[in-house]
């Protein structure tokens, strides 16, 4: 039954097939430990999210044009491109975070488990429960570390011992050892890197299927950045991760797949290339991608 549906979609979009998970070892890049990735079963978990002809407008201004892509389960997908090309707009479409912007309008489909997230009867709140997000600037609540993690758990009515869930989440975000003695202290007293990992822990605590990260390291120093990149590789065995970054090295280091976005003449964001990360960085098909990753512009 499910297989049949997949067949149908393939028929509609045959060009998508090649970019879905290939063999895993090939995606690993030199210098990175890829243990976590190989631990997950690579073969055919398919895609969790699929974008079909997505067009986005802010009022009359078209911010995204004809975006098609699919996000592989338990993979890290990076979205790169020059600033202002619509990366944030795109990633915020994936959990309906853009609903907050009054002038926002989307056409096309964002399919999550075969459901269009933008169809009329979908509750955006539940979308966000299952697709979490980490933002550019760490944004902990002005409360204790414990309460930051516990908040989402409480409101979602997740069962289990709260203390355990908080500990697990903080461990998963590689923050537990640093904060275990000061859980009741204000989260605002943590360093930027710690705050960002707290935000990751907060996202993990509600057990989402996908974690979206919009330039999660841009406000952090290199060491904190590395720490988060390692963390992402660990998390990907459990979660699907989509990360926006303007840092090409970061995309090359952490991601399995990379989408390259550019602005068209009318300043609308377009996806110029999407595929295996190593392929994109070693053998780009599109001229603009090549120019961008070799630093000739952007």
């Amino acid at each position: 039954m499910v297989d049949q549906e997949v067949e149908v979609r393939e028929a509609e979009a045959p060009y998508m097939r090649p970019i879905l998970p290939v063999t895993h070892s090939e995606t690993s890049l030199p210098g990175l430990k890829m243990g976590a990735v190989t631990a997950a079963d690579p073969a055919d978990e398919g895609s969790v999210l699929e974008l079909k002809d997505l067009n986005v407008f802010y009022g009359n201004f078209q911010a995204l044009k004809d975006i098609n892509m699919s996000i592989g389960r338990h993979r890290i997908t990076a979205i790169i491109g020059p600033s202002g090309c619509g990366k944030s707009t795109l990633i915020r479409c994936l959990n309906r975070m853009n609903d907050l912007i009054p002038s926002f309008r989307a056409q096309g489909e964002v399919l999550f488990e075969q459901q269009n997230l933008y169809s009329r009867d979908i509750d955006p709140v539940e979308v966000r429960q299952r697709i979490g997000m980490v933002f550019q600037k760490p944004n902990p609540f002005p409360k204790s570390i414990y309460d930051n993690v516990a908040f989402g758990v409480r409101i979602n009515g997740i069962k289990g011992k709260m203390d355990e869930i908080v500990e697990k989440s903080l461990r998963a975000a590689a923050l537990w050892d640093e904060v275990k003695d000061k859980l009741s202290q204000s989260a605002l007293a943590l360093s930027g890197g710690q705050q960002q990992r707290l935000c990751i822990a907060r996202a993990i605590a509600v057990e989402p299927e996908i974690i979206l990260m919009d330039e999660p390291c841009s406000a952090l120093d290199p060491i904190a950045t590395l720490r988060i990149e390692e963390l992402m590789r660990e998390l990907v065995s459990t979660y699907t991760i989509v990360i926006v970054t303007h840092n090409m090295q970061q995309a090359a280091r952490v991601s399995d797949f990379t989408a390259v976005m550019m602005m068209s003449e009318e300043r609308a964001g377009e996806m110029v290339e999407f595929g295996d990360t190593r392929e994109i960085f070693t053998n780009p098909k599109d001229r603009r991608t090549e120019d961008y990753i070799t630093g000739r512009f952007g």
Partner: protein
Amino acid sequence: MSTQTLAYDTAGRNAYRRVWARLFHTVFLCATLFGIVALAVLLITVGLDGLGRVSWDFINGYPSRFAERAGIKSALFGTFWLMGMTAMIAVPIGVGAAIYLEEFAARNWLTKIIETNINNLAGVPSIIYGLLGLAIFVRVMGLDRSVLAGALTMALLILPIIIVAAREGLRSVPPSIREAALAVGATPWQTVRFQVLPPAMPMILTGVILALSRAIGETAPLIIIGALAFVAFVPDGPLSSFTVLPIQIYNWTSRPQPEFAQTAAAGIVVLLAVLLSMNAVAVILRNYFERKRKW
């Protein structure tokens, strides 16, 4: 030759300009001092007239036909009753309206009408609210001249102020906090209730206190709804009749005998003291939380 004339003229003109500039610097300064002097004279007049009359007997005494025996106990309690009930009515409604407008309202014509309307209500003279209260609360709803009728009237009067203050408080919470809450799957209401309202609360509270301190001195609307001047008892419930400090003050001021003027001044001293303490609380609250705030 011509150069000399020019230089001379310029110098003369510059000196003239300097004199004017200096003169007006002084004029502006003096004009600014005028307001301060007026305030000082007002406070001194009231103090001289009234301070001697303030005593425990005055605060603890009931109104009387004899100026030297008149006290403000019933007015003081009436004021507290009225303010307490006004706050109970106006705060939830005002904060609710602010939350709706700031957090949930779609940017459409209806919202715009509501906002314009609130702006206009803020400029309606208080005596008009008195007429509204008289017709609706006193007559139609049959509340008579009760504390409840007065509180409902006052609540409508200060609602615009509370709404504006509460919106400001909500706006001071950065959008990133809302995004954070929504991103872990909170509903819009949960976001506001658990993450936006708590940090906004001190600022909202400050605004509420300032709005109440506006209401506490209001006299006209209460005269219109017929709050009695001669009430020799403390209110015992929402439907009890009442009097308040400003009405007592008005009543005493409007009497011809000079002893009543002193009594009025003493009432003013007490009223100003209550006002001053409310404002002090508001300022301390604001400063304390502004220092504590991190973003």
